[in-house]
């Protein structure tokens, strides 16, 4: 188990628990009541900590190394053996940071698209830390258009620290790739549900994020820039990241209050990594409910209300 800095009290209690369990295995004294007591203390502590997470702590949870990633969700959500991953943008290559494919939920086909992070050092590099190149966005677009052709709804799972800021990415038009996705998603004729399952960093996230329904899981963040980079630019130092996280109103609750997302998906106590199956189940329910709601709306109406939703975002005043 990996513990975040603010989870230290939980780590200490767990350590105590381990030690006492060792005593019990030796069988000399009965410590079962102490074990129960500590277990209860742990549960209380986790609840206490997780009910009072600061914005920065939520950012940390969203990046927890044991947090489940896109393919984990898809594997659980789709019917057994139904998911087939599809590769390539039919142009320059296959982006490992952006995955996609078709599967079924209760027998109904769904196109899944999402950024994918790696589970260990080697895989993190392989997945480019979940930072797609232009071909990733173009692969996503290809799959969306294909879904549109076959009248299959699209579900995007967002988890990225940003679009990759590399040399080749610039050469191949990172900006254009994201922009193209935005204008195409606006007019996509099939239902589009987007869920931030981890990090929602800027254009890299929005590039697959213009849904009829946009949700954020409880302990995720979504904004124009990461709190660290915001701190670096505005305060000219890394040290104000906590403050930046607070000021940017980037948590799921803030984003809901600002009217920029449609809902928050609950996470199990202790975060999605504490009980991945519970997290998967909650996301699955949100997808099923949204698709049920969106399926019977006429495509033109759905597109019009999607455009209207995004067109009214922002806050201006008249002098």
């Amino acid at each position, binding site marked *: 188990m990996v513990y975040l800095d603010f989870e230290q009290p939980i780590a200490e209690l767990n350590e105590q628990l381990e030690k006492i369990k060792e005593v019990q295995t030796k069988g000399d004294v009965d410590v079962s009541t102490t074990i129960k007591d500590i277990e209860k203390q742990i549960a209380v502590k986790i609840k206490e900590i997780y009910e009072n997470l600061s914005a920065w702590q939520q950012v940390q949870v969203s990046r927890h190394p044991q947090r489940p990633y896109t393919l984990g969700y898809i594997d659980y959500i789709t019917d057994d053996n139904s998911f087939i991953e599809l590769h390539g943008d039919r142009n320059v290559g296959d982006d490992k940071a952006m995955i996609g494919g078709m599967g079924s939920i209760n027998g109904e086909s769904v196109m899944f698209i999402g950024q994918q992070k790696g589970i260990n050092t080697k895989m993190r590099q392989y997945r480019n830390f979940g930072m797609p190149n232009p071909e990733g966005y173009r692969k996503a677009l290809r799959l969306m258009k294909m879904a549109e052709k076959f009248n299959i709804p699209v579900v995007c799972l967002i988890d990225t620290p940003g*679009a*990759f*800021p*590399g*040399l080749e*990415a*610039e*050469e*191949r*038009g*990172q*900006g*254009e790739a*994201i*922009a*193209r996705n*935005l*204008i195409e998603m*606006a*007019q996509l004729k099939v239902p589009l549900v987007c869920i931030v399952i981890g990090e929602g960093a*800027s*254009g890299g996230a*929005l*590039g697959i*994020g*213009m849904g009829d329904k946009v949700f954020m899981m409880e302990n995720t963040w*979504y*904004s*124009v*820039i990461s709190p660290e980079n*915001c701190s670096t*630019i*505005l*305060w000219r130092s890394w040290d*104000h990241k906590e403050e*930046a996280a607070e*000021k*940017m*109103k*980037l948590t799921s609750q803030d*984003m809901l209050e*600002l009217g*920029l997302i449609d809902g928050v998906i609950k996470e199990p106590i202790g975060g999605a990594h504490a009980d991945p199956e519970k997290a998967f189940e909650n996301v699955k329910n949100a997808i099923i409910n949204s698709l049920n709601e969106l399926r019977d709306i006429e495509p033109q109406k759905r597109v019009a209300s*999607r*455009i209207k939703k*995004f*067109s009214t*975002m*922002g*806050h*201006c*005043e*008249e*002098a």
Partner: protein
Amino acid sequence: MGWFKRMKDNIATPTIAKKETPEGLWHQCKKCKTMMTAEEHKENLWVCPTCEHHERINSTEYFSFLFDGGKYSELSPKLISGDPLKFEDTKKYKDRLKAAKAKTGLTDAITTGYGKMEDVDVVIACMNFNFIGGSMGSVVGEKISRAIDHCIKYKKPFILISKSGGARMMEAALSLMQMAKTSAKLSLLAEAKLPFISFLTDPTTGGVTASYAMLGDINISEPNALIGFAGPRVVKETIGRDLPKGFQTAEFVLEHGFLDYIVERKDMKAKLAQSIRLFMN
């Protein structure tokens, strides 16, 4: 006693009696350092006659030579930024806005207007880099959105001159969503079969590049303009080596297939007008 003794005080002229060159009479080219009068520079459309460096200019200047006789009607002139997040870093966002308004005399990082260009009706939106780095916040998104509404209502083509460092951090996710908003609106303009010409000027980066600036039916730029998604410093840090010469210039972007052509400022109006005439035939 020293060998040398100063016989006079340092500066004897009182401040009031100082003879200074009036502000704005001369202009020195930022690139080749050639001196010229501000009048000459303006007559040459703010381009250096020696090295052809295209000085960064804002909506006032672009509108003065793009619209016939410099005449246009401004759209939504009263729209201003609120401070929805009550944002404060080293300064309050409200104070930053106030300072930018005082410095530029503008209301935000974009000005939109309609008028005639070589007798053709056009709507032009032009970003103001001198207003908080031309950053895109709610006002920029809303003004573009309303300009597009005007285009659709009156069947006019839309020209958008970008000049921006990207999204405005002080409006956080609200800024981010302006990318979605403007793109959604542009999809309606496209449905109405009205041309959208995106003119990318120095610099166009970040969220602006990743939304409307790259979505023109044709994308045009000025010579040597910086155009990119990530800023050059960020790319350099990412790859850990020096950037190739000319990286992210308009010429580089043209070469990689994301621009239709590059035009010098003196030919800009004629070429824009001709492009529109061909579309609206």
